[in-house]
C-alpha cells in the first residue's frame, strides 16, 4: 500500500470536485489522481494547483492525505472520502454511482 498526497480542487465553471492526474489533467475520478509519496513531490503538486487556479480552471486547490491499494485511491479522512464520491445517501430522483472510496467510508 502506498501512502501520500493527492491534489484536489473544484472546477471553476461547475464546482465539481476534481483531482490532478499524472498528465496534469483534472479528473472527477480520484483513482486517476497522481499520488505524491514524497513531501517534495507533494509540494510540486501544490504549486501546480496554484498555476491552475491562476488560469481559472479550478478553484480552492488543496492537498489531501490518501492511500493507494492496487488501482484504487482512498482518502484518509471521512470528509475527503465523501467529497471524492458524492453524498453517501441516495438523493431524491438521482442514483449515486457506486464508488469504492465511499464503500470504505461507510464501512470505516
Amino acid at each position: 500500500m502506498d501512502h501520500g498526497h493527492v491534489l484536489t480542487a473544484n472546477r471553476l465553471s461547475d464546482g465539481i470536485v476534481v483531482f490532478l492526474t499524472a498528465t496534469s489533467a483534472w479528473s472527477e475520478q480520484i483513482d486517476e489522481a497522481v499520488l505524491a509519496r514524497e513531501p517534495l513531490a507533494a509540494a510540486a503538486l501544490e504549486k501546480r494547483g496554484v498555476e491552475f487556479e491562476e488560469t481559472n480552471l479550478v478553484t480552492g486547490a488543496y492537498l489531501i492525505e490518501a492511500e493507494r491499494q492496487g488501482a484504487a485511491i482512498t482518502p484518509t479522512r471521512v470528509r475527503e472520502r465523501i467529497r471524492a464520491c458524492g453524498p453517501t445517501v441516495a438523493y431524491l430522483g438521482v442514483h449515486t454511482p457506486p464508488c469504492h472510496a465511499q464503500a470504505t467510508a461507510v464501512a470505516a
Partner: protein
Amino acid sequence: MYRYDEFDQTFVDQRVEQFRSQTSRRLSGELTEEEFKPIRLMNGLYLQLHGYMLRVAIPYGTLNALQMRTLADISETYDKGYGHFTTRQNIQYNWPKLEDTPDILADLASVEMHAIQTSGNCIRNVTADHWAGVAADELADPRPVAELIRQWSSLHPEFSFLPRKFKVAVTGAPADRAAVKFHDIGLRMHLNDAGERGWEVIVGGGQGRTPMVGVTVREFLPEEELLGYLEAIMRVYNLFGRRDNKYKARIKILIHETGAEEFSRLVEEEYARAPRPSVEVERKELDRISAYFAPPQYETLSALQPDLEGRKLENPEFARWVRTNVGAHRVTGYGIVNISLKPAGGIPGDATAEQMRTVADLAERFSHSEIRVSHHQNLVLPDVKLSDLHEIWTVLSADGMGEANIGLLGDIIACPGLDYCALATARSIPIAQSISRQFSDPSRLEDIGPLRVNISGCINACGHHHVGHIGILGLEKKGKEFYQVTLGGHSGTDASIGGVLGKGFSEDEIAGAIETIVDTYLGIRGDSESFLECIRRVGTPPFKEALYAPA
C-alpha cells in the same frame, strides 16, 4: 402576500445583470477567486463539499404556487431535480453550476425572488411562525412587520457589515412556533388593555457553540416604534460587538459579556438620542404593507363536517393524518395542512421537482395559491377547507408526502451534515434516516406523542440540536464519526437548552440509543405526560442509567 413594486423589481433585475457580468469576468479570469468570492456570497452562492450551493431566500417562509413551480423548474433545468428546504425557511440547491447561476437568478427574479442576504454578516432572511395569519391562537398576522423589517434591513448601508450574521424571527401568537428566544432578535406580539399591538423584544438568543436563551429588553414596544428601536439595538451591536473572534462576534456574546442590564441601558440611551422616522410615517408604511396580507374571502362554513367525519371513520390512516398533520385554523370550517417532508428513511426537507409541483397544484386548487415553508423543514397549505382534506391527503400520499408524523418522532430536523456541508464534522442525514426507519410505525409514533429530534452535523447547530427534546450532534474523533446526545431542549415559550447525556454513540448505535431513551420514557411517564414534561420532572438520571449502566 407582498408583491414587488416597481422599485423592488428594478433593483432585483439590475442585481441579476450585475452578477451576470461579474460571473463572466470571473470565468474569463478578469476577477480572481479572492475578488469574486464576496460577490458570489452576497448573491447566495456558496462553495460546499461537492460543488456550488445556491441558497434562495423565502421571506418569512411564504410563497405562492407560481413561485413554488419556478423553484421546481429551476431544480430540473439547472440542478438534479430536487431542492432542500432548510431550518431557516429557505431552499437550497446542491448542484448549480457557476456559469448557470445568473440564469437561475434571472428566473427567480421573474417571480419576485432572489438570493440576496442569504450569506454574509448582514441581517438575514426574517423568519416567522409558519402558521402566521391563520393560526387559531394568533393575535394578529406578524408578517406585515416581518416584511417591514425585510424592507428596512435589505441592503441597509449601516448594517451590511456587522460583526457577524444577524437573524430575526417574529410571531404573533402566544404559542411560540418561530423559536423567537433563539434568534439574535425575537419579536413576539402582545395586545395591551386598549387592544393595541406592541412587541416584546427579545435579544441575544442563539445556538451554535454557545447556545443561549434570549433576554427580553422591552416587554411592550408600541408597534410604530419598532424600526427605531431595532435600529438602536443594531447600532449598539455594530459599535460594541466583538470583531476579533468570529466565535465571539454574535450579539449574544456581547450581551453575555456586558450584562443584559447594561446592554439594555445602552440601547435605551441610543434610542433616546437618535433621530428616527416619525410614528405616523411608520404607521402609514405598515398599513400599506398590511394591505398585501389581507386575509382571503373565507366562506361561512359549518363546524360540523359529517362528510369528513365519515371519511375518518372509513379510513383510520386518513383519520390519523388529520389528527397529526392538520392544525387549528382561526376560521371555522378551515384547517392548516402541514405537509411532512419526512418519509420514513427519507432525507428531511428534500423535495423533488415533481413534489414541489404537486404542492403548487394543491395550493392553487385548495389554499388560495399560498404555501409556507416551516423551520421544521416541512411545507404548509395554510387555508384549506376541511371538506377538501381527504382529496389533499390522497394526492399527497400518492406522491410520498402523506406521512402522518408532524411534531412526532418521525418528523426529524436534520441539517445537510457531512453529506453536503463543507463545515461538517459528521453526517446527519443517515442518522435521521436510520431513526425514522426504526420509528416508522405511525401508531407507535402517536402513542409516544410529541417528541422533537434535531440533528446537526457540527457545532454550528443548523439542525438546532440544542433545542431538540432529543438533540444529536455529530462529531469526529480519530477519523470516525460519533454522535453526542442531549435531552430536554425546547424552542417554545418555555424555552430550554438540552443537556449532554454522556459519552457519544457510533452511527450503528444511535438508533438503538434513541430506542432505549424512548422505552425509558414510556416506562416512567405519568398520565398523558409528554416526553419533555417527563424529562423536566425526572431529569436525566433514569435515561443515563438505561443507556450507560453495565448490563
